[in-house]
Every structure is written in C-alpha cells, then in structure tokens.
C-alpha cells in the first residue's frame, strides 16, 4: 500500500469509527448481497464506458481495492512464504499482486459484455458469508460463481471467489509458488516477475 493511500484509508477508517461500534454494523445477509450487487454494477459500468484497455485495467484495480480484502488476499496468495517476507516485501507484493489480478481478469472483460450475474442465495458459513450467483454469459451455459465476504477488516469486503468450485485464491497461490520456484525462492525476483506477468 502506498503511503498516500494508507493515510487516506486511515482517515476514512477513523471517520467510520463511530458507525462501526454498534451491533447494527455487523455484516449480514442483505449487506453481503448488496456488496456483490454493487461490485457487479461497478464492473459493468467500466465495461460499458468503452475506455481503452490500460485505463480499464486501472479502473478494475481501483474496484478491486475498494471491494476486496486485499491484505487477506495477498497474504493467502503468498502462503507459507509470507512468513519469511520482510514488511517491505509484503507491501511490495501486495501492490504488485493487485495490479497482476486486475490485468489478468480485466483482460477477459469482453466475455462479460452483455452478461449478467444473478444472486441465487446468501448464507452464513462460520464467520463469513457465502454469496452464490449464477453467471449468464453470451454463448455459454450458465455457471456458478460464489463469493466469500466478511467484515473482519471493519469493512464489508469479499475475500475469495469460486468459479464452478474452483478456488481462485488457491490457483493464484499455486501461481505465486511456481514463480517463486522459478526464481530460486527469491521473493524480490518473484515480485518483479509478477509485475511483468499479465
């Protein structure tokens, strides 16, 4: 996280403190559902804008930062290797990973044009919520997409996504692990490779 965004997040966090103390602020089924609804609405807005690809990727990165638990996602993706990373490496990894995800999934946005994500149901699992949706894309049979959302960070955020049972975070941890192996376990080289990966 860059210093400026850290400061603005901290200020935003302070601003929200009074609203977060009451019991009414806990994540519930309808809030989990509306989180996913507005995430989908924001993504559709970017796709409909018809901007150039690089500027869409920046928009997707902004959406990803706003709706997802980026520190959880980065920590999960790094797996056990995160334990030996320095705090500088951790934050560099986190920002490289967010850019990588936005490019990787953003590049496929054309498949979503004219498609829709229909919320099928929300249920509480342990300490988080599972939002089941059905993706209907043009020229494809509908498929299941499930989001996991929690407010462990103090904000309602999604922290994982499953497509037809495939845990996307786990596939990214496999990718990061492979990049580490390829670079002889060197975390800095892995981060550099991630910045170049699409």
């Amino acid at each position: 996280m860059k210093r400026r965004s850290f400061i603005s997040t901290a200020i935003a966090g302070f601003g929200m403190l009074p609203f977060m103390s009451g019991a009414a602020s806990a994540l519930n089924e309808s809030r989990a559902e509306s989180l996913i609804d507005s995430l989908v609405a924001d993504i559709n807005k970017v796709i409909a804008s018809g901007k150039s690809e690089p500027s869409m990727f920046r928009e997707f990165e902004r959406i990803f930062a706003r709706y997802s638990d980026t520190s959880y996602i980065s920590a999960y993706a790094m797996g056990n290797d995160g334990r030996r990373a320095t705090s500088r490496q951790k934050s560099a990894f986190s920002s490289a990973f967010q850019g990588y995800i936005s490019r990787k999934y953003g590049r496929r946005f054309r498949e979503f044009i004219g498609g829709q994500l229909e919320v099928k149901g929300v249920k509480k699992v342990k300490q988080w919520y599972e939002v089941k949706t059905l993706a209907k894309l043009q020229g494809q049979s509908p498929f299941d997409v499930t989001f996991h959302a929690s407010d462990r960070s103090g904000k309602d955020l999604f922290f994982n996504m499953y497509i037809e049972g495939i845990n996307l975070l786990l596939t990214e941890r496999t990718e990061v692990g492979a990049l580490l192996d390829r670079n002889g376990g060197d975390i800095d080289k892995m981060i550099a490779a991630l910045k170049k990966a699409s």
Partner: protein
Amino acid sequence: MNYISPAFRMLSRLLPFGALALVTACAVPQDSPDGIYDPYEKQNRKMHAFNRGLDKALVRPAARGYSQVVPDEIEDSVGHFAQNLGQPSVVVNSLLQGDMKGAGVATARFLTNTVLGFGGFADAATEFGMPEQDTDFGETLYTWGVGEGPYIELPGLGPSTQRDTTGKIVDLFTNPLSYAVDSPEKYYGTGASVASRLSDRDRYSDTVDSILYESADSYAQARLIYLQNRRFDLGDETSNREVDPFELDTKGF
C-alpha cells in the same frame, strides 16, 4: 426402455472393474497439502509435457480450423448429436447410482431429442424444460464410496484421477447403444464427440490457453483446477482442505 436389458447384461462385465477399483483407489490422505495427492508427479509431468505439445501442434489448430470453417449452428447440432448419443450411458449410470429421477429425465431427453430433435441434432428437450443430465461411471464409483485415489494425467485426455480413469474405461462399455448399433453407424457417435471436443477447445480457448501457456506452472494449475472442479461436480466437500480466513496472519500486507 428396450435398452434396460443390455444394461443388465453389461453389469456382469462391469463387476470385475468395480471390484478392482474398490481394492486399489483410496481416499486422499489427510496430510496432503491443498487436498492434492500426487505420488506419480514425475510421470504425470512427462505426460503433461506430451499433452501440451499435442495441443499446440494438433488440437488447438484443429479446433481453430473446425470452428472457423463450420457454421456455429452446425457446430451446435453436432454437439447436441454427440450429447444425445451419450444419454443412454447417463441412464445406465444414474440407475447404478440409484438416481431414478436422473435416469427418468435422461431417458425422456433421449427419446424427445431422438424423435422431435431430428435424431438428436436439435436439443428439443431443453426447450421443453428438461434439464441437461450428465454423469459417468467415475461418479457412480464416487456414490459407491470409492476414494478418489492419486491424480493421473492421461495421454490425450488430460487430467484425471485413479477413480475417474477406471470410470472412463468402464464407460467404454456402459453405453447400450454400442451394443445395439452396428458399425459403421456406431462410429458416428465417436466422430461427433471428437468434433464436439474441438468445439469446446475453441469456445474456451482463452481459458485453456491461460492455463496451458500463460501460467508459470501449467501442470500444477491444470491439476488444481481439475480436482476442484471435479469435486464440485460430484458434490464432494471433504477432499478440499481450506484455511480458516480468520486464522491467516495478514499483518504487513
């Protein structure tokens, strides 16, 4: 339902296979990381390199060519035809799983599409609100309690497990049509399913390419994705091992 009796005749041939699978396929051991049990990784990786070469040299270009030359409507019809010929096998496997409803729907779909769908080239059943049915002998083994066993990458066919490999071999014999139809007609189905696989390879080209050619370790990606998706289709929730999101140390990220 004149294919029920061949189905039972066939059962006697299946039993040795089933017994073999029961003896050899075991569950995924508890200590395997990410729920992956891959004792044959070295051989599997060699097979993966072979499959990747096959895809690059043959399957991918053939799929591209097939989809470019053949109009979309014909491609869909060939896909429906191949799927329809597979329905009797779905009926047999549904019966073996004790899934009477699935067997009934698959039977109705087969009859509807064969009669009203011009011999299976149109999917009339879906338009009448009969949902698609898909199952195989690998799933039958799962419902019988056979464990997944080690991960295996098969030549030409790609990712599988020991249980699903046994299922694929047995499924060569579970389609009553292959007993009822003489050659050369029985090879129409094989041709249609190869063509329909080419259609799928091209339709999901971006996804397949990103796994095979853009990831840092395509073998590990294909293995993970196959296992997770297959377990999801089977409704197997015990083989995946997940960390509790609240136990992860996110400090510094």
